């Protein structure tokens, strides 16, 4: 497959808009791969959709106030894996616990933002944009992509798999992120059909001679970027055998030499207003399996030592359980940062369950601190302009 740049090279245009071009001169063969170096640090963002119950994820299982607030839902010692300091991980997080034991999990406690918003939409928006006043329409990693985009960045800098469209986290002013359901879906629908190569040549030729800042030129540029991204993803798809889970697909993209530095996957089902106990255990298990599968595949591909996973959710949940065996929308949550380069341990104080605001935790660590630490320590950029303020950094990644 050919992209616009290669096309332009092939026809060696003498003028900006020739009257006719011979597509056969290009041939239908793919041009050189144009592979870029695998980025030094790879970040997978894992979204727990619906509002994860942080207190039953990183559990203060010895805290009297915790047991009192949750007569039905409080987890007991045999339902958790202790990480010390009166805290424990839900038993469903078996792989995460193994990583914890290897010193590869940072548990950042009680993360949130001032004036908690209890709307799924609004609070998720705030977490995705790092804008507690909803002042941004771009995502925090989308702004990172915008700030660091360059000619050698590669065609697919960020990829979301299995989400409904591109998550706001990855949306910037540029077009660096793509969303796919699977590798094979991100393709021209007429690929492989007789004449597809000629169609593609004509499509590429739409961009001949476009320049300047006109809207036409912007569309042409977007189409060229898209063609490059499709070409890059198709090469990855060709190398992958069998169906892939979203987590494994991200690992494949990371190792493909197409410039992918950020991945995004989500696990839903965390809005546990009723009969939370079994449902929450099942959803956390799914999260655990996704994390394990990702590092497994990353290890096979030889990139595990570059990879870090970070979690977030809509919000945490109310401290006290409700009358339906569930929990309602709450405020802050623990954020897990995992991987070989992570400096394992707990960060921040254990939430004080006796000092609640309207039944909710008072957030202690601003989400901007977590994001700024990741941007600074994983990607080596100044986080201030991207996050919009200078938040204290936590030593999460070495």
């Amino acid at each position, binding site marked *: 497959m050919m992209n616009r740049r290669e096309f332009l090279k092939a026809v060696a245009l003498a003028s900006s808009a020739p009257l006719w071009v011979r*597509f056969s001169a290009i041939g239908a063969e793919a041009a050189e791969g144009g592979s870029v170096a695998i980025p030094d640090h790879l970040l997978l963002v894992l979204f727990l959709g619906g509002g994860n119950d942080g207190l039953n994820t990183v559990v203060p299982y010895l805290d009297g106030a915790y047991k009192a607030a949750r007569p039905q839902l409080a987890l007991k010692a045999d339902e958790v894996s202790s990480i010390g300091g009166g805290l424990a991980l839900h038993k469903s997080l078996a792989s995460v616990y193994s990583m914890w034991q290897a010193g590869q999990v940072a548990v950042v406690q009680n993360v949130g933002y001032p004036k908690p918003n209890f709307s799924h939409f609004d609070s998720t928006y705030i977490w995705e944009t790092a804008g507690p006043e909803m002042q941004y329409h771009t995502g925090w990693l989308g702004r990172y992509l915008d700030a660091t985009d360059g000619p050698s960045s590669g065609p697919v800098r960020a990829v979301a798999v299995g989400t409904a469209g591109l998550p706001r986290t990855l949306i910037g002013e540029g077009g660096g992120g*793509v969303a796919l359901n699977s590798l094979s879906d991100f393709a021209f629908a007429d690929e492989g059909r007789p004449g597809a190569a*000629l169609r593609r040549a*004509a*499509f590429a*030729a739409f961009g001949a001679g476009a320049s300047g800042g006109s809207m036409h030129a912007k569309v*042409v540029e977007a189409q060229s970027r898209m063609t490059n991204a499709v070409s890059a993803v198709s090469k990855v798809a060709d190398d992958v055998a069998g169906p892939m889970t979203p987590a494994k697909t991200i690992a494949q993209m990371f190792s493909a030499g197409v410039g992918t530095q950020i991945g995004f996957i989500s696990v839903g089902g965390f809005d546990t207003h009723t009969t939370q106990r079994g449902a929450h255990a099942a959803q956390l298990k799914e999260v655990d399996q996704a994390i394990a599968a990702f590092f497994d595949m990353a290890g096979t591909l030889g990139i595990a030592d570059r990879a870090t996973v970070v979690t977030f959710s809509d919000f945490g949940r109310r401290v006290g359980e409700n009358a339906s065996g569930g929990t309602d929308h709450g405020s802050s949550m623990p954020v897990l940062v995992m991987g070989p380069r992570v400096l394992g341990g707990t960060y921040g104080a254990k939430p004080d369950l006796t000092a609640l605001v309207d039944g909710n935790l008072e957030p202690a660590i601003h989400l901007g601190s977590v994001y700024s630490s990741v941007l600074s320590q994983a990607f080596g950029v100044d986080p201030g302009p991207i996050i919009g303020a200078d938040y204290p950094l936590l030593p999460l990644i070495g």
Partner: protein
Amino acid sequence: MRPLIAHLFRRAGFAARAAELDHYQGVGYETSVEELLSDAPLMGQQPSFPEATESVQEPTYNLVGRLAPRGLLDIQTEWLNRMVTSTKPLVERMTLFLHDHFATAYRPGDIIDTQELTAQNHLFRRNALGNWRTLCHAMLEDVALSAWLDNNVNVKEHPNENLARELMELFTLGVGNYTETDVREAARALTGYQIGYNLEPSGPRNMMVFNAELHDDGAKTILGKTGKFMPHDVIDIVLAHPAASRFLAGKLIEAFVTPAPSSAFVDKIAQTLVAGNWDLVPALRAIFTSFEFKDPAVRGALVKSPAEFMTGAFRALGRTENDLLQAGIGWMKHAGQALYDPPNVGGWPHNEGWLGAGQVLARYNAGNAIADRHVAAFVLPGQTAIRAATVKGWGEVFGMTELAPATATALQSYLDQAKDPTPQALEAAMITLVIASPDFSLA
């Protein structure tokens, strides 16, 4: 004249078909504008595009009981069908504008279900070429917007500022034209609405009911005016603010003319709104007949939204099959715009916001699927084959009288070199490529 007519219809009518271009070229530009602004269906109508019925709220009960509620896809497809088949395309284009402006999203767990959104959609359509003040007042009684912005729980004891803030920030004035105190005071004035059951069996199930017990009847000071204001007083107060007319004028110009209007042009349209006591038709007439609109430099200066893109493709080819329209809803979603599900109350990001890689790919693949269906369908008995023989002709099928030189070159080169095995396959390729061209993504 013909390029100008084509420009008018791309902006105001989801693009003209070749027969419409012929017709409106004959009647002249000013008359074309008047016909788009009038209540009457457009002339030059293809008989194969029946007018969508102007049905009101669908019944929710029959003799047996409550009917099964329709799903999101049902109402999305219904609206897309209206846009595709409408003989009053500017009404549908303005309905789309208003949906983006008062952006309310499907949240069936929080009252905003298909009935509420359909009712809101009808409200927009009834007022699409009506009066801005009337519409703003009606929005206070709209169940979907009230639930979306929490005005149904905005009560004297616990005022909720959500609607008050967005009313000023996003709907009428814009940031910088009010203070936090104005928001708080307006929220107090907006207190007292509850959602009540509608006893009219053929109507929507819910309606807004004003309960004086829940209303804060004390004095408020909003934008410098003091009084025991009631909810509807807030609308009159904000529309009396000098920023209100410029705000709406700017929004209309950005939607129909240019993303970067001059201040003088905004002032001119704002004055038209005020002089017309907030009637929309004089303002739209002033826009479409302006020098700024006719300036060739603004042609192709806007990126079509996915709704305009899909509607334009279906309209051009006369394709109205329900399953194809449903697929169109899916492509629109991949292209970044799910009707009735805007990303937030601010509506969709425009222009460059539609140009993500997956979004642009969805446009190509939508074109390919429509093309395949079109050429398969028109070999069936009774189907009219909408087709062209030349590159220029294919452009006009899709409402484009002038293609960019590179686009024309690429299409001509394809036509000359294609080895497609049948005429239908060649036509499918041309349709795919024209829809996928940068030109067709621009308005």
